[in-house]
């Protein structure tokens, strides 16, 4: 999987968003930033997550506390979906070998 760092400032310029938004998300533990020689970077693997938080903020005017809660609930939903898919696939597997 890709594991490239991009400067946070580039992301902010591209999406026209304040750098404090990313810092706040990082403070909440919602994204992970890495500081190298005073420059802050984000992992490209985190980009889609970061863009999702940005949309929640801009489209729906959800504040950071709300994003935190939504993110937690989406994680739970995701885990349940994975478990459900896994069980479905396991069921298919046993159906195939019967």
């Amino acid at each position: 999987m890709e594991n490239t760092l991009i400067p946070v400032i580039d992301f902010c310029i591209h999406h026209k968003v304040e750098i404090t938004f990313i810092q706040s998300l990082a403070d909440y533990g919602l994204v992970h930033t890495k500081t190298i020689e005073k420059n802050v970077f984000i992992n490209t693997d985190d980009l889609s997550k970061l863009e999702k938080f940005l949309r929640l903020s801009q489209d729906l005017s959800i504040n950071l506390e709300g994003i935190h809660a939504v993110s937690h609930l989406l994680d739970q939903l995701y885990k349940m979906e994975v478990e459900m898919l896994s069980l479905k696939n396991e069921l298919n597997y046993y159906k195939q070998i019967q």
Partner: protein
Amino acid sequence: MDYIDYYKILDLKKSASADEIKKAYRKFARKHHPDLNPNNEEANKKFQQINEANEVLSDPDKRKKYDKYGKDWQHADQLDAQQKQQRQYQSQGGNPFGGGGGGFEGGDFSDFFSSMFGGGGGRSNQRSPFRGQDYTSDIKLNLLDVYTTHKQTLTVNGKQVRITIPAGVENGQKIKLPGYGAPGANNGPPGDLYISFSIADHPKFKRKGNDLHIQEDLDLYTAVLGGEKIIETPSGKVKLNIPAPTQPDSTLRLKGKGFPVYKKENQFGDLYIKWQVKLPTSLTEEQKELFEKLSKL
């Protein structure tokens, strides 16, 4: 293009104020936002309609045109000009439906406008594209299932996806299938499919990296005097020469008889065999005498 009632989409009266429109938009957008409804195509479509309705109704000028012309609101200026021309023509005694000019009820105009609105251009391009949701799937396999490369069909979000599972995949390993996620919205790219492998332990073979470890029983006489033994490996049976003597818990390595190395054809780890020497559980009188003789030698 079918007429879409933007007021109905946002559950508003035609007399709704700007503030009511804003509130209704936020209420429905929160309910149907694609990020809050992952893998839900219906919510995705609904969100596009809500955006479209809000885009028109929240702009007083667009709203006025929509109220007057419905689905053809984007061509309000052209329609106004046509109406003006029509009125002038009628006042001059001409037939608005007879000549090349055409009226609003004429088939040519309907087709013309339908083609203008139906192609997905215009409004849809004004909205930002959404990348489709990533899908994830967990595959449970037995250890020997991943000894060879094989194909498997998965059900992901109601669709059948046939994938190749390469030999040597490890427990917990994730693979990414780009573009196999949910389709994007507003011409956005599709998401990806992430598959993680959960590989069950085998009762006999223990995997450590690319090496396999097994324990095999060895009777006392073969352990002491040496001999031959046939053992099962994942690639078939192997006949081994047992040296004399072989100590309990000693290990024998069979090079290249372990697990295939992931995505490296014809490369295999090693198979380690640990000998469990089994003593007889009972002795005949003759055996006992012979062991006693041996012990005194």
